[in-house]
């Protein structure tokens, strides 16, 4: 395992979801590479396709709606998109490990931690139960869980949120995978715990030499954790650069918008936050023009007509995909200048962002339905057709509602 070898190469990945409501174009031709030991951040808002990309890579998309409809995922010189199911299964967990956002729901509530860890180990190695148990103890120690021998017999709900996530990390690292994918690992955790868990993640992956893909919507998280960052929007990569470059010279209007909408401790008091106006686009449409056009302050007419490809910010530079010398690329017809990036808005005198062409009015502010953030609901609807069928027990055919739990209702503030 020498650094510099390409471990993962995603080429033109296209993922679509076929639902009752139409086809959702979740990922639209994403390409990137990863070196061994490299740490890559995938950043974007909910629904931009970052999680879908990763699920697609190991073919864990919700069935039957999710489908890979184009592209290749080359891992260790094998194409994961065409691999047989049993071969893929041996890669999952062993070579590629994934940890998910909510450790409470991602761990089986009725099995002990020991059972869940041991089964992972024994699924991929010829090893006795006792040895597997010892390894599990070792792993729990590694992630900093006190008294691992007794804790092994506990159930997930007996751990705190941060501890649970450590257990998940331990499980993921059990077989020393070459690639670790962390999907919003700290979003569900308290802010104070977040830092600890991230530190742990970084330390362990550095130690073992695993490559890592860190998915998040929080730019602050990737800042300290990654070598390179891909910024995604509406199923595309709109900007890619080394972490240093991205924060030093953010170039895509979306990235700039993201950076400016984070309230900063050192901001001038009274200076208004600059939000990104508009809403995510309707993912039910096959994209034919720049997906960010509706919300972009730098847009030109051409932005409404064509989809900008990913290109180096300095024309003609040779493209280097990975490593510390990776080329800074963006997908934009009218990139902001450095001063504009600092200001957060266009500074060219007399510049007015091109209005949408007639007939496209509903693009502006449209798209309540169909972003991938809706997918959970829609896909859940497909699989469990009875959907919210009350699982309340019945007497003589009529469901008796159980003693009610106290659910939070979707608040007014979520009223879209």
């Amino acid at each position, binding site marked *: 395992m020498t650094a510099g070898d390409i471990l993962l190469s995603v080429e033109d990945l296209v993922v679509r979801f076929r639902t009752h409501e139409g086809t959702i174009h979740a990922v639209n031709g994403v390409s990137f590479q990863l070196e061994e030991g490299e740490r890559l951040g995938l950043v974007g808002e909910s629904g931009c396709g970052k999680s879908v990309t990763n699920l697609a890579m*190991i073919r*864990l998309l*919700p069935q039957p709606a999710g489908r890979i409809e184009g592209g290749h995922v080359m891992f260790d010189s094998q194409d994961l998109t065409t691999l047989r199911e*049993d071969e893929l*299964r*041996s*890669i*999952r*967990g*062993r070579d590629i*490990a*994934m940890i*998910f956002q*909510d450790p409470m*729901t*991602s*761990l*089986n*509530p*009725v*099995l002990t931690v020991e059972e869940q860890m041991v*089964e*992972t180990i024994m*699924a*991929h190695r010829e090893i006795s139960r006792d040895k597997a148990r010892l390894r599990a103890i070792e792993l729990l120690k590694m992630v900093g869980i006190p008294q691992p021998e007794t804790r092994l017999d506990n*159930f997930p*709900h*007996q751990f705190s949120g941060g501890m649970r996530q450590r257990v*998940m990390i331990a*499980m993921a690292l059990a077989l020393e995978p070459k690639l670790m994918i962390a999907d919003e690992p700290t979003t569900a955790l308290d802010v104070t715990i977040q830092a600890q868990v991230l530190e742990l993640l970084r330390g362990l992956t550095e130690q073992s030499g695993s490559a890592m893909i860190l998915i998040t919507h929080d730019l602050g998280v990737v800042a300290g954790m990654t070598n390179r960052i891909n910024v995604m929007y509406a199923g595309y990569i709109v900007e890619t650069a080394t972490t240093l470059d991205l924060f030093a010279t953010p170039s895509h209007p979306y990235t700039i918008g993201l950076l400016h909408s984070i309230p900063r401790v050192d901001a001038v008091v009274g200076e208004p936050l600059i939000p990104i106006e508009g809403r995510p686009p309707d993912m039910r449409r096959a994209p034919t023009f720049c997906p960010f056009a509706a919300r972009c302050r730098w847009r030109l007419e051409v932005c409404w007509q064509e989809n900008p490809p990913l290109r180096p910010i300095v024309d003609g530079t040779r493209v280097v995909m990975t490593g510390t010398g990776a080329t800074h690329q963006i997908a934009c017809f009218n990139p902001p200048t450095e001063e504009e990036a600092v200001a957060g808005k266009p500074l060219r005198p007399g510049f007015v962002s091109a209005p949408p062409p007639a007939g496209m009015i509903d693009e502006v502010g449209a798209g309540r339905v169909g972003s991938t953030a809706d997918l959970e609901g829609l896909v*859940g609807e*497909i*699989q*469990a*057709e*009875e959907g919210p*069928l009350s*699982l309340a*027990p*019945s*007497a*003589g*055919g009529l469901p*008796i509602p159980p003693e009610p739990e106290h659910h939070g209702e979707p608040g007014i503030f979520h009223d879209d």
Partner: protein
Amino acid sequence: MLRFIVRRLLGVIPVLFGLSIILFAFVHLLPGDPATAILGQHATPERVAAMREYLGLDDPLWQQYLNYLGNVLRGDLGSSIINNQPVLREFLIRFPATIELTVAAMIFAAGIGIPLGRYAARHAQGWSDGAVTIISLLGISIPVFVLGLTLQYIFAVQLDLLPASGRVDPRAGLEIRSNFVLIDSLLMGRPDLFMDGLSHLILPAIALGSIPLAIITRITRASVLDVNNEDYVRTARAKGLDERRISSRHIMRNAWLPVVTVLGLQVGGLLAGAVITETVFGWGGVGRYVVDGIFNRDYFVIQNTILIFALVFLVVNLLVDILYAVLNPRIRYA
């Protein structure tokens, strides 16, 4: 765990008390003198006087209630007005018949319902799933007596394949020991009687079990589908476990939980449905006993068999709750 059991037990007691109070109050809410109300207009004065004394009608109400309670706890559940047989004894004689029927119906319902529900979940959206849904729908829409009569007509009257009523051929000479036909026949060393008993059991068990079958199928299907979508199943897949393991350890272990709850409640439905089934099939169990009691306005029979039924139901529910706690660690340590 023990604390959980104790807590549940303690919860049952007030309910039983409340029920006993209501049952006790029945006779006092009837117009007129309770003793006459029970015995009817034509009772002799001696009987009325004896009844008054038994009920302690001259005592204050609360003392009457305590008398009642004391009687119940001692096993004195009154006697039939008609034939003077003690209620408790008559109940216990007939109870095995109802148990046999209920157990058979539950085996039918769960034995088919659970696998069918899993199958439907695996083939969700397919046409077999649609067929299963239709069967479920019919199951809860066809009343037990309609189904029972229809089965009788088809299999007994027309096809003459199965007996229409009764528990066993009366001419075959079964010795009654436990009053479980299936057990007694084996005790006698008569496998032919065993088969005869079985053949009598089939139609009523199907009729009685049809509703639970429908519900269990539905709940199992929904539960498996729900669990299949859960994050921890996704994690299990991401760990590279094989599908069989995922299905049994991860999916079913969690999908069982709502099913177990439903099973417990269905026992209640079965007990209640047994009343009708026993009437249709001439089955000599406690259901018939209660119905006859109602026709004869046999007060103590009605009052106390309801009490016993409730007790049985509550005990079964308690057992189901314990089973649920065993399966679901989150409840255990709550």
